[in-house]
């Protein structure tokens, strides 16, 4: 089984400042890693994903994340945030080894980090 820990439940930051949202995971098998964003009263939108290859992953809206296998982390970063980035951010993990069709794609989510960008 996998688990995800998002270390900060709330992160306030001023506009144009950099931000890092932290995510750590645990798993006994290889994993795929994801960051989703949820704006108020909406569903989840995929920001970026790590499946394999380069450990630095770039996503939409200027976000990027770095997979660190030794530290089992997948922290999300943005060099300069905007008011419109205010939202809830969820880190998620799924098993990376697909045994058979339909068997591997359940996501385990962290509890979320509320990013609030202040003017």
């Amino acid at each position, binding site marked *: 089984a996998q688990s995800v820990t998002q270390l900060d439940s709330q992160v306030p930051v001023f506009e144009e400042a950099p931000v890092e949202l932290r995510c750590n995971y645990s798993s006994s098998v290889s994993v795929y890693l994801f960051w989703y964003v949820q704006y108020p009263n*909406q569903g989840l939108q*995929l920001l970026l*994903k790590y*499946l394999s290859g380069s450990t630095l992953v770039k996503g939409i809206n200027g976000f990027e994340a770095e997979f660190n296998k030794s530290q089992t982390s997948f922290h999300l970063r943005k060099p300069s945030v905007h008011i419109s980035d205010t939202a809830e951010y969820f880190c998620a993990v799924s098993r990376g080894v*697909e045994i058979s*069709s*339909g068997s*591997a794609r359940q*996501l385990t989510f962290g509890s*979320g980090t509320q990013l609030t960008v202040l003017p």
Partner: protein
Amino acid sequence: DAGVTQSPTHLIKTRGQQVTLRCSPKSGHDTVSWYQQALGQGPQFIFQYYEEEERQRGNFPDRFSGHQFPNYSSELNVNALLLGDSALYLCASSLGHPGAGNTIYFGEGSWLTVV
């Protein structure tokens, strides 16, 4: 290209009643999963359907059941509703076969309030 669509968007039910939520996956996707997101929490996996069969199930009671139709759309049914079932129910779709990549797309969700 239509994304994942869910209906209804909001509904209110009374304790003990039954509810059915519906989901149409993204075009070309054959796997549908359902998640429950309680207020202030991350989504929790309920179950997943592929080829009209339940393939995986999370830690939810048998009151939660589902169905997948030949056109890949899906329903989530909850019987004997409890106040604690009040939540946002999210449908997610993806491709089910190995090696297809692993992008999972979510719908806007159905808000269920049990009173």
